[in-house]
């Protein structure tokens, strides 16, 4: 009973917060609601026994990405934004597309059959400690994708500098 109660809380809060993020007029308010959403998501990951993911959700998403969003929102002017229309003229078309995606996903989930169980049970993870098990998988089986991720971050650094730099007029 208690896990279902917790899940109900998280489901309600996460759904309401994502609707708030998408519909607010002021982008700063959207960013703030998204901050709350990310903290709720992090606590739901704790509820799902994923401590490391909860930590990087708070550190990377809430700490780095959202601050970047907030900087850019504050760089652009908000005066006209508060008076202009929020949605494009043909927003019912977007609503229909989203509803169609939702319906198809609900049907897919209802006919979903889980695959075979893996070997990392809760008891095993508790015996070996979580971070050690995760690190072993990450640095042995997924070493090559890990290196590619570092390359992606390097490209992101260079690309962001090149794109946001003021163009020299010669």
């Amino acid at each position, binding site marked *: 009973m208690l896990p279902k109660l917790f*899940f109900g809380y998280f489901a309600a809060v996460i*759904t309401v917060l*994502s609707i708030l*993020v*998408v519909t607010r007029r002021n982008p700063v308010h959207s960013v703030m609601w998204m901050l709350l959403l990310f903290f709720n998501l992090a606590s739901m990951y704790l509820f799902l026994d994923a401590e490391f993911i909860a930590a990087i959700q708070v550190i990377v*998403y809430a700490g780095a990405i959202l601050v970047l969003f907030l900087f*850019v929102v504050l760089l652009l002017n908000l005066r006209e934004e508060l008076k202009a*229309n929020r949605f494009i003229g043909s927003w019912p078309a977007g609503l229909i597309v989203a509803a169609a995606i939702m319906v198809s996903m609900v049907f897919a989930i209802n006919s979903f059959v889980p695959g075979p169980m893996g070997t990392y049970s809760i008891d095993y993870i508790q015996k070996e400690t979580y971070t050690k098990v995760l690190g072993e998988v990450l640095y042995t089986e997924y070493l090559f994708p890990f290196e590619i991720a570092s390359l992606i971050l390097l490209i992101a650094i260079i*690309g962001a500098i090149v794109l946001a730099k003021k163009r020299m007029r010669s």
Partner: protein
Amino acid sequence: MVPLQWYLMLSAAVFTIGVFGFLTRRNIIIMFMSIELMLNAVNISLVSFSHYLQDLRGQILVFFIITVAAAEAAIGLAIIIALFRNKTTAHVDDMNEMKG
């Protein structure tokens, strides 16, 4: 014990809200935040799969998704700044030079 399907339904709902926001909002920053919302919906389903199927690979995938989301946010916001410098607007329906 909460069934796995409930988590997948929550993930589907968040993803749908993200799709709606991406398709209908005029402000390009909020469209971008809708993309982040969709990535987070995928993360929910991956972590719940990882928990229910007792396999850590789902969480490794979440790790990589967060890496790519950080890179994407940096590049995308740089593009938004470059666009705003040239057009002085953040509304996507005002950007129609290519007549798409």
